[in-house]
């Protein structure tokens, strides 16, 4: 156990934040929203995974990736490929020239399932691919970039280009990927209809459960030594390097973690939406993902989830109420947040609410000061 006590793992405020989020997602939303809105909330939460990953990479590691959509897409496509193969039984596709392969392949005159589709006939391999493929891809990018000490703006630009390349690749190779249409018409998961109201409920709770798994992993990383090295690197990379740490390896690790989270998010999105499309992979969605993180607060894991929920909620609400104006409204929100709330919603909480809440907690449970002292001593000695 790398922690001396539970307090080292989660402060009182952390526990409170996790608990409030849990109550909101597990109790309040399912009770107040009808199933369609809950399904929508589930899809917003799928972006929450990416935002959590970005808190680790960007907020703590200082690695601004403008290509998270790539990993989100890899996870989403891995899930979609499995579901598509399940939907493309020879009986369902009997009107095609080649029955038994996905419909878009048939339209593109492909007569045999391409080799890289074959593993996705297995559910287990698909689940592994959802996490492993984005991680491996992130590892390759990480090794290529961080070992050469590419960082900052250059890294952001390169990830952005990778997102652009990925979109072009997917759209261009439509016989293998479904092209601009994406992979559509996904119906069942291991024979279980994913389009029913009941399935919407189940998938929502699965999504919330996985989200908390990722939140705890994130918390674990941040509070462990790795997290401290990350913060130190963000402050002064060279000093950490001269202290004998391999900076690149830490960066690669956190970048891969973010990619794996994004992959899980993409897969959960595919399940809840019923299709996957290249419009989640490109530059614009990747930037939107960074904005979710920024709005929520890039130093707060829980804040990132709120960011994904809030921005998507605003996007949907404005989109439905003022179809002609919503883009402008979105723009105004972002400008407002960047100018007014540099640390996002979580920053707002820390500046105004954290103090009073602490006092209330003190009154209820006694002072936390002794623990706080221990923590800072530990920080100084390590």
């Amino acid at each position, binding site marked *: 156990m790398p922690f001396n006590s539970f307090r080292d793992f989660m402060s009182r405020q952390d526990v409170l934040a996790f608990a409030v989020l849990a109550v909101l997602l597990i109790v309040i939303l399912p009770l107040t929203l*009808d*199933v*369609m*809105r809950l*399904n*929508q909330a589930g*899809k917003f939460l799928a972006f929450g995974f990416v935002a959590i990953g970005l808190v680790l990479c960007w907020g703590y590691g200082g690695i601004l990736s403008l290509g998270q959509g790539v990993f989100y897409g890899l996870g989403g496509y891995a899930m979609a490929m499995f579901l598509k193969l399940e939907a493309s039984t020879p009986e369902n596709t009997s*009107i095609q*020239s080649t029955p038994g392969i996905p*419909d*878009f392949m048939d*339209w*593109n*005159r492909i007569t045999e399932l391409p080799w890289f589709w074959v593993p996705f006939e297995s559910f287990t391999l698909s689940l592994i691919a959802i996490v492993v493929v984005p991680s491996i891809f992130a590892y390759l990018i990480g090794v290529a970039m961080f070992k050469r000490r590419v960082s900052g703006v250059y890294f952001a630009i390169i990830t952005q280009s990778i997102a652009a390349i990925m979109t*072009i690749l997917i*759209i*261009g190779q*439509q016989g293998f990927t479904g*092209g*601009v*249409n*994406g992979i*559509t*018409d*996904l*119906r069942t998961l291991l024979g279980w209809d994913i*389009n029913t109201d009941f399935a919407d409920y189940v998938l929502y709770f699965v999504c919330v459960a996985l989200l908390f798994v990722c939140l705890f992993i994130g918390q674990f990383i941040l509070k462990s030594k790795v997290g401290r090295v990350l913060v130190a690197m963000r402050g002064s990379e060279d000093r950490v390097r001269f202290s004998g740490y391999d900076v690149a390896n830490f960066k690669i690790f956190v970048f891969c973690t973010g990619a794996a989270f994004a992959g899980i998010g993409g897969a959960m999105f595919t399940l809840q*939406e*019923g*299709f996957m*499309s290249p*419009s*989640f992979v490109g530059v614009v969605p990747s930037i939107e993902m960074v904005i979710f993180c920024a709005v929520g607060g890039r130093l707060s894991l829980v804040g990132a989830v709120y960011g994904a929920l809030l921005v998507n909620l605003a996007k*949907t609400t404005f*989109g*439905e109420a003022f*179809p*002609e104006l*919503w*883009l402008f409204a979105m723009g105004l929100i972002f400008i407002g947040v960047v100018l007014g709330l540099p640390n996002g919603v979580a920053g707002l909480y820390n500046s105004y609410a954290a103090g009073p809440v602490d006092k209330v907690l003190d009154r209820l449970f006694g002072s936390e000061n002794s623990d706080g002292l221990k923590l800072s001593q530990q920080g100084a000695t390590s």
Partner: protein
Amino acid sequence: MDKSNTSNRAKGLSRRGLISASLTVLAAAVVMSSGLAVAKPATSEVNTTGLAVTDDTVTVGILHSISGTMAISEEGSVQAEILAIEQINEMGGILGRQIRYIQEDGASDWPTFADRARKLIRQDKVAAVFGCWTSASRKAVLPIFERYNNMLYYPTFYEGLEQSPNVVYTGQEATQQILAGLDWVAREKDAKTFYLLGSDYIWPRTSNKIARIHIEEHLGGRVLGEDYFPLGHTNFNSAINRIRLRNPDVVYAIIVGGSNVAFYRQLQSAGLDMTSEDFTLMTISVTEDEVLGIGGDNFQGAFSAMKYFQSLDNPNNKAFVKAFKERWGEDSVIGDVTQAAYLGPWLWKAAVEAAGSFDIDRVREHTPGIELDTAPEGYVRVHENHHLWSKLRIGEAQADGQFKVIYETEDLMEPNPFPAGYQ
């Protein structure tokens, strides 16, 4: 609009009128005070599945992109659908109910289309949706319409290979648009060699596949080349050079969106003059809307093959064009898809009235065989496969951005989304 239906309803009314006249004044007063006009069937009769139908209104959805890259193309469809709904309301609505519409923005983003479709169907409980434009957006919403059983009226000419019980395809599928046009160009221009071009996605690829098979196996011609370009591509010089080298009788182009502007300008500046007898270009992707962007001068002399042109000379179309311009401004132009979108609400109205109900299953049951005498493109009828029987017309592009219709098929062509021998 649909005369037979209106007269049927009138008969029903008069019968009902007689009955109510024979009732006591008190009974009549009860009927009046309950807020029901004697003329219309009770809501419980016409809506047994909980759609958004009240005693006075019925709610439908309009789902197009009004932001993003597709907005410019889909705007005409939105305008046409709103115009049709307003005209139907002026005539007294459907089954005595005024149509209310909820407009959602698909934002040129396929997942957003799916999201909004879900909202319209599940939350707003609309009785029908008029919308979508690109195949990608239709593919994204299709499972939702099938899963929650609702009707989509889809206006765009498209690649076929689809036949959903929950969609009415008011544009042409690929064979309707392609075969007769190629026959015409082979006959009139004595064309033997063809060069196929297209934007790189499913509609141009499928269409060119059908065109190639028709050229090679039915017309005895040859395809000298087939090139595809990414959406939004703007540099066509190398393709144009290949065309000049191989010198085909006909260039068959299915390029969409903004790429058109670059393609036709570069063609012009490369000296390939479409107004001369030596060079023939046929397209199935350029309507009056696209010519606005390309510029009439750059497109003059090209042949478009589709079912509708704004210049079509018939009384229905004259009335439609006049009404459209009165509603949306003198400068508006009307392309093929806009007209097809206009048919949506009218086809739905006719099916609802034939069914005597807004229930989706009943409407669907009565959809095949629905006829419209008053369509701007002329008479249309819905096929068993939910596509329309329609004519193909060839328009020669004029410098003012309009088309001169120089040919139309004698008969309506049967829609055939799964053409045997062309797959």
